[in-house]
């Protein structure tokens, strides 16, 4: 009989949890995923006039952002009801549409590209200001009847590897920041929804929690991004991409782009080539040769 009791208790807990999730439905319906188009890491990456060259033939959605899209889709799929929205937003010229198409293929509902000459050359702060302004605009759409609950990003862009934009977007919005999550859980009750993450940062394991709205960044260990299915691939081809300008977002041109940048890249050059490699094929003395190389170069 104890087994049946345990089963009943489990069922009751399960139902209570489901009920808790169902109450979330009115709270959590809209997620914005921030994406970046980056040069492929295996391509010939380079600078011209202090800026990264974004060759449309050798670029794609930042691989780490696929984890952000996946995290967003999993959250909406775990919620009851079908009226959720995941909006992908990128700050880039039209070459970046490949990145938004990829997000459409994975299953996001809307794609927005923020494009303006006045935004070119933005530093971290200009980038964060523009992205936060796009989130605010989405938040206020239709009289703010469906505010944005969550912004999700990847852990870094593989070109710049700064990893600071998520924290700056949270600061701009005045929202909680939960960054570098390796696991994500959403719980809710009538008072609102709470996002809990675990992460490993520098010297500690942490569990952090915050009420929504929040800015979340996920690492590449948080999930495995899905492969797009045929139907979504076909549908992604014809999906519209909305284009917003700096003026649409109410951005002051003096505070963004090159005009507002507080840092300027003044030089960019390929690093000098390494000296020719010395190769030793091990015929029984390879370890000794290695040790001698280290000793000779004062590395021991």
């Amino acid at each position, binding site marked *: 009989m104890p087994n049946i009791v345990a089963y009943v208790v489990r069922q009751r807990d399960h139902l209570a949890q489901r009920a808790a999730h169902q109450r979330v439905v009115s709270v959590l319906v809209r997620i914005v995923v921030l994406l970046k188009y980056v040069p492929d890491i295996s391509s010939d990456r380079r600078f011209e006039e202090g800026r990264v060259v974004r060759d449309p033939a050798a670029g794609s959605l930042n691989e780490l952002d696929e984890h952000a899209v996946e995290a967003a889709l999993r959250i909406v799929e775990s919620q009851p009801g079908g009226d959720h929205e995941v909006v992908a937003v990128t700050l880039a010229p039209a070459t970046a549409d490949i990145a938004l198409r990829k997000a459409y293929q994975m299953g996001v509902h809307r794609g927005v590209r923020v494009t303006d000459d006045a935004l070119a050359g933005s530093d971290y702060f200009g980038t964060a200001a523009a992205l936060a302004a796009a989130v605010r605009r989405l938040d206020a759409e239709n009289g703010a009847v469906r505010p944005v609950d969550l912004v999700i990003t990847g*852990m870094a862009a593989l070109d710049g590897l700064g990893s*600071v934009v998520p*924290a700056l977007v949270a600061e701009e919005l005045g929202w909680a920041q939960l960054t570098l999550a390796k696991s994500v859980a959403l719980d809710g009750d009538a008072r609102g929804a709470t996002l809990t993450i675990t992460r490993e940062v520098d010297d500690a394991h942490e*569990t952090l929690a915050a009420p929504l709205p929040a800015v979340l960044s996920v690492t590449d260990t948080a999930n495995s991004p899905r492969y797009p299915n045929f139907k979504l691939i076909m549908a992604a081809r014809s999906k519209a991409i909305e284009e917003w300008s700096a003026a649409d977002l109410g951005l002051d041109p003096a505070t963004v782009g090159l005009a507002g940048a507080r840092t300027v*890249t*003044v030089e960019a050059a390929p690093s000098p080539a390494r000296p020719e*490699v010395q190769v030793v094929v091990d015929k029984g003395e390879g370890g*000794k040769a290695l*040790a001698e190389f280290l000793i000779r170069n004062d590395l*021991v």
Partner: protein
Amino acid sequence: MTIRTRPTVLVFLDSPQRTVETVRPAVLELITLGRTLGRVDVVTLGAPTVEVLATLGAYGVHLVHQAQVPTSLPESSYRLTSVLASVLATAVRRNDADVLLVPSSFAGKEAAAVAAARLGSGLVVDASSLAWTGEPGAGDPAPLRLGKRVFAGTWTTVSTVASDPAVVTVRANTVVAEPAAVATEAVVEPLPVEVEAPRVTVVERTLKERAAGRPQLEEAAIVVAGGRGTNGDFGPVDDLADALGAAVGATRDAVFEGWFDRYIGQTGVTVAPRLYIGAGISGAPHHRGGMQASQVIVSVNNDPEAPIVEQSDFAVVGDLADVLPQAAAAIREHKAARA
């Protein structure tokens, strides 16, 4: 316009505990670097021990700003980005610092970025060199020039920061830490910091266990890393690391296999040691992005065609299970003879 006399450089002295019991090598490097730019003060959240103050004095630090956060703030939240950013920004304003230097780590970068946002400062992350352009004192603000290695070390960029203050996170092993020619007496000054109640709650925080006697991977001068070619046996890697006094790392693949806990790579730990030795590592772009800025690169691999061989200064083509223990034994012999 004020004429700059001697610039003030503020260095963030971070500590995993409430009491600051040690000064990490990365912080000593920042102090050493800071001395080339101006007078160096540090800011910290904890109480430094007598030994720490002696070290700071030997490195030429003048003031130790010890943050006093509201008692209502739970200690577990001291390392949240928003709290650290308040401490850093307050310290910069309080001593009118011209440069804030923070060790590059995920937490350090976020805190530096949010502090810079609040200060209206320019920010450079992961810098590998810093210098004033022209004469300090020639103008205000004197532009700071910052070198940075990007695209997995294949390009070098130079940025200028015109804002005063400038906020910079600096990679470990950028300079060799050296005590000052003239020691100072580091004086602790309380720094009252106002902190907004954080939106984030720290539910749990546990410090990672460190392999006893080994340096931290992020800041080690020598790193030995193992990849798929170890087939899960890190014994030879550990052996060579112990002989060299090195930190041990791995590739992402090796960590995903469960063979090791920390990986070097674009999304893991970035290392730039004096010496990097990769064993059984092919050199995928992800891994190279995390180690290519190393000064000397040595590889041991069965496959002479592996991409890492071309990136190396010295490569042994052979079985790591033979090569590594033999190298470790020869190094121990050399060290014993020298001692």
